[in-house]
């Protein structure tokens, strides 16, 4: 009996490991940013349903991880498209070129706003970028030019007298998150630069400038709440004094429990982000490997689906999923570039 079991499993093992010849890949492979993931998957699903092509496989690897995979080579084993919540860096373009990938099509798909929100049970806040910087930075200016001190602020009114006396308690994503990178770059650095001496400092000592503007306090006022934005929303509902940092689509889905603070006087609303008035918003991209067009079926059709008004337009289904569309002129311009497969220009 025992030997029989072993033989059986050995046979199973043999059939399983005897790898059959791999069929040619007839399915698009997309990797990249977790921020673009919900949008790319929506398009992929519709594309699979509306055409005879297979539904593309979309992986959530993060922008950097996606570009690394994307630039690894040309051929069926490598992804065709990578999503990014930031623009490709010149170092990544070089890396691609080193592996023979010189023809990349860049596609900008729209915008994403990062909101600073609290529970609807409390009052809506009206903050400036400088307030956010002073409340969340590890070290803040003392008032004397060139001098910094460890962040002494514990309540919002200490940061800005017009804000209420509420304890500073902000929940946001951990350092691995692209949302956090964008928040630091746009909000923290934006607030940091409002101090003229720090701005002047940028040219003199870029490293010190970065460490001052980009370092978030670690004394408990900023709470790393994990990558899951839903969790932050739920925690905000439970704690009316706390604030959260997350993507606009989560604010839109939970507009009954949380509200976005106005930043520099602009509320995080669809139109404001689309027109660029809201200060904490970023562009979303994807990149296509031109050498795979023709090699893997369906790439041009997928691009056509993504750039159709029905998808990324003002009333398209991506807007329903929380993507903030580009303006009409921008869309026409980008659609032309994308569908014409024009090369990336840095």
């Amino acid at each position, binding site marked *: 009996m*025992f030997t029989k079991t*072993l033989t059986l*499993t050995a046979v199973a093992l043999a059939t*399983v490991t005897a790898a059959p010849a791999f069929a040619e890949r007839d399915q698009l492979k997309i990797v990249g940013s977790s921020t673009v993931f919900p949008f790319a998957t929506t398009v*992929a699903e519709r594309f699979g349903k509306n055409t005879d092509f297979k539904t593309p*496989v979309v992986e959530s690897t993060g922008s950097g991880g996606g570009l690394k995979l994307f630039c690894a080579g040309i051929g069926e084993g490598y992804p065709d498209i990578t999503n990014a919540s930031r623009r490709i860096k010149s170092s990544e373009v070089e890396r691609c070129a080193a592996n023979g990938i010189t023809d990349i099509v860049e596609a900008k798909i729209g915008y994403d706003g990062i909101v600073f929100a609290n529970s609807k049970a409390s009052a809506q806040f009206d903050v400036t970028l400088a307030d956010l910087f002073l409340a969340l930075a590890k070290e803040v200016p003392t008032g004397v030019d060139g001098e910094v001190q460890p962040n002494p602020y514990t309540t919002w009114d200490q940061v800005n007298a017009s804000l209420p006396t509420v304890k500073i308690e902000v929940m946001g994503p951990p350092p691995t998150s692209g949302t956090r990178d964008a928040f630091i770059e746009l909000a923290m650095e934006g607030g940091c630069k409002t101090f003229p001496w720090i701005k002047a400092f940028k040219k003199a000592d870029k490293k010190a400038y970065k460490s001052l503007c980009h370092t978030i306090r670690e004394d408990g006022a900023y709470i790393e709440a994990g990558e899951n934005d*839903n969790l932050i929303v739920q925690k905000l509902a439970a704690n009316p004094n706390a604030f959260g940092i997350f*993507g606009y689509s989560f604010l839109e889905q939970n507009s009954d429990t949380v509200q976005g603070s106005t930043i520099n006087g602009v509320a995080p609303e669809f139109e404001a982000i689309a027109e660029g008035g809201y200060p904490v918003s970023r562009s979303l991209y994807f990149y296509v490997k031109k050498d795979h067009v023709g090699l893997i079926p369906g790439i041009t059709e997928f691009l056509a689906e993504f750039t159709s008004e029905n998808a990324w337009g003002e009333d398209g289904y991506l807007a329903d999923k929380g993507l903030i569309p580009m303006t009409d002129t921008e869309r026409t311009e980008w659609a032309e570039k994308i569908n014409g497969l024009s090369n990336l220009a840095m």
Partner: protein
Amino acid sequence: MTNPDANFLKGQKHLTRRYRAEQRFQWIGRIAIAASLTFLVFMVASIFWQGKGALITTKIALTVDLSTEMIDPANIKGASFDKIIKLALRTEFPEATKRKQKKRLYALVSSDAGFQLRDQILEGPALLGADQTIWVSASDDVDMLMKGHIDRNKPQNSRRLSDQQISWIDALLVKQVFNTGFFTNGDSREPELAGILSALVGSALSLLICFALSFPIGIMSAIYLEEFAKKGRWSDLIEININNLAAVPSIVFGLLGLSIFLNVFGLPRSSPLVGGMVLSLMTLPTIIIAARASLRAVPPSIREAALGMGASPVQATFHHVAPLAMPGFLTGTIVGMAQALGETAPLLMIGMVAFIVDIPGSILEPATALPVQIFLWADSPERAFLEKTSAAIIVLLIFLVLMNIIAIILRKKYEIRF
């Protein structure tokens, strides 16, 4: 000499203190068990409470115009089913004339409604030729309203559905039915369509590969190491390494899989084949350690009696020792497989954390796994995914319980035989 009575009394005092200590210890133990049970019950109950909603879905009845003008019976697939659905909604509510209003109206039904209509017609072409009432899926927002997750009493701008949309829903014929789609569909970005099947099949295929690799390899290495290998510096070294491997964080095995299985062997990314191979790397040490322990627990008299009767060492091992250790092998394997079932970290590196709509048909097609599906749904902004997440956890738990039951049955079978 002191008075013996006094000594006796002193002992009595010690004794009561000892008894009390014993009582105290027992109570602490009971409280610990009660606390862990409470946590467990609380966790399972809250998951079931949140997940039960995913088993119900909302359908809307629409009167659609299926005249031959709209659909050519000779070319059913060529018709625009989305248009028919939209037309049906507009005829039901002619007051929606502005672009925005129309958009809100169309948002009541799922984006899949057109495809559902097509499938119904393809199944029963007799529907063609007249107005018909058909049931299609409602959108996730309508579903949330019907389940009471959207508060009608809140002001219009702080909920996902407008007053007008709610009045439309109230005017429509709506029913709540069992959500079979959850068990028959793959993943979707629309919560009302998302199903668990692709992840379930992906997990099952990965575990099959994992079992097919790690069970024979693990058991054979354990038998060799325990029964045949010479004890010495080398076998000590191997033993230490196996014990260490069991404690290596699982993501490391994912990295190994990426660099060896994908980059060197060129196996297909995101496939259950690679997933199973990586998971088997992870479960091997667990199986080997458990199998060796159970071999060691077989009384030496069995071995000696077999050898004494003239059996060769191989015969003694395979005819007498290994069958007695079989229940232990199975326990070790099931512990390892249960661990593998819950892993996401190593799968991230080999591309199984992915959006997969199609149900994998073989071990080479892209697939995802149950815990990955839970993670992806938990991370989605749509609120309707919350209940899907809990429901997926329930499916994972049931899968685990089934696996354990099979192991128990097998174990019982082997225990009776010998």
